[in-house]
């Protein structure tokens, strides 16, 4: 248990560093899509919600089911909406190519 915890802290630290390095390079041009994309990725919390709603619980099963189900709805709407709008925005970014009007 204790070792697991330490591993998790290492994972968090490394991921935070990767996040800083990768996201620092994102052009300010794309900061709005960046926010909607990270939001969609963040909705991976749906994984926890699915297990909460679906697993067997000896007590508190009703609570887990209700809260878990609402949580899945909230996260899924972020996944679907987030990816959709990010892609829509990115499709609009065009370079001034040769077919300039």
């Amino acid at each position: 248990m204790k070792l697991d915890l330490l591993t998790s802290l290492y994972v968090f630290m490394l991921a935070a560093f990767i996040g800083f390095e990768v996201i620092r390079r994102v052009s300010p041009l794309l900061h709005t899509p960046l926010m909607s994309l990270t939001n969609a990725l963040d909705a991976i919390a749906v994984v926890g919600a699915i297990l909460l709603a679906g697993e067997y619980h000896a007590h508190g099963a009703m609570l887990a089911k209700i809260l878990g189900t609402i949580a899945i709805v909230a996260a899924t709407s972020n996944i679907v909406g987030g990816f959709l709008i990010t892609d829509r925005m990115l499709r609009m970014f065009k370079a001034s190519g040769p077919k300039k009007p």
Partner: protein
Amino acid sequence: MTNLPGVENIIEITYLIATALFILSLKWLSSPATARRGVFAGELGMLLAIAGTLLHRGIVEYKWIVIALMLGTIIGVPLGKVAMTAVPQRTALSHAFGALCVTLVGTAEFYLRAPDVPRFMMGVLSLEVILGSLTFTGSLMAAGKLQEVLPQRPITYKGQNIINLGLLGVAIVVAGMLVAHPEKTQLFPLIVGIPLLFGVMMIIPIGGADMPTVISLLNSYAGLSAAAMGFVLDSKLLIIAGALDGASGFILSVNMSKAMNRSFSNVLFGAFGQEQAAAATKQEARPVRSATPEEAAAILAAANKVVIVPGYGMAVAQAQHKVRELYDALTKRGVDVKFGIHPVAGRMPGHMNVLLAEADIPYDKLLDMDEINGEFPQTDVALVIGANDVTNPAARTDASSPIYGMPILDVDKARTVMVIKRTMGAGFAGIENPLYYLDKTLMLFGDAKSFVGSIVRELGGGHE
């Protein structure tokens, strides 16, 4: 964990691949050329992770999961199709949904595990629930203000910061008590309820122009609460996704606070919109030069190099498509047209870029502040559309100005400055803008959309 080793391993491998895809997704987002591939990588990762999770042997009932997934999709599709002008409030709303998910899962986990919750677990669980619930109501409030169902003006009162920090302090103390005595389950509702209230109080003093910082900050909180949830559930995938989101929000918050010349602690403690009261005093009538669309068109047509500086006013007037016609008309005449975009222009980071890209303006013409500022001295005309404080030269020269020290777009260094503005009224911060009284400045009074339209007509372009 009585899963068969085989299934267990498959699930873990889908999580591992999903993690890699998430990181690649953000890496590819760094350039517009590869960005769409980034979205695809993210989608694939998400699909794999969800499919992997559904394989879990521990899941005994699928009915509600399937219904919830479908319902979420039904809600998500329209949220993915909102107009580009509504993207800031949509983003705030999605932060609220993310935070809601995290808070609900955290709450359920507590009641499932109580009374014997290990200390560290209780600590991260508290962090998850506190951050989650304050982000939930805070983001709902922000979305409400952006959608203008709530008053946009900041509402301040005496002792506001003390009350707010006090609320947060109480929540943290209660969390501390729970860490010491996790069996006191009656305390748990407090660390949900108080932050819910705090989220509302935190956004009350925030005005529209501070929204870019606030949205970034809420983005960061949403990420951190998800990472905390990862600790509680021992899910590396969730820890990593949360950390990435938290880092992203943090970087954007720092960018935004730098662009407004506020210290990060000022931002962190929600002391937004405090400094405005001092301004708006010396309102004497000074002469300004104004011009008609014909005059403006003549000057623009004679220019070699024009820089357009858009602000939130352009979005409000929905003028971006007219601006595109102006861009076309000038480009056709051989004028070099670029756009100078301040980091806090608009209501969220990158807001102006999205609106202009939607209007089909090529992204290589959209330059951020550091790229464009060196070009103003060689610029014939700087055309300011619906921006105010971010062009205020007092930020450079007047140490008594409330925005002194804030990095601005140096439009006053251009040979001629044109400002499209409805009236002479002061901007959001109530600060007088000396730019308007310069000899080289021409004020173009009117609605941004119709004024730009008139200029376009004069230039012989447009589709009328």
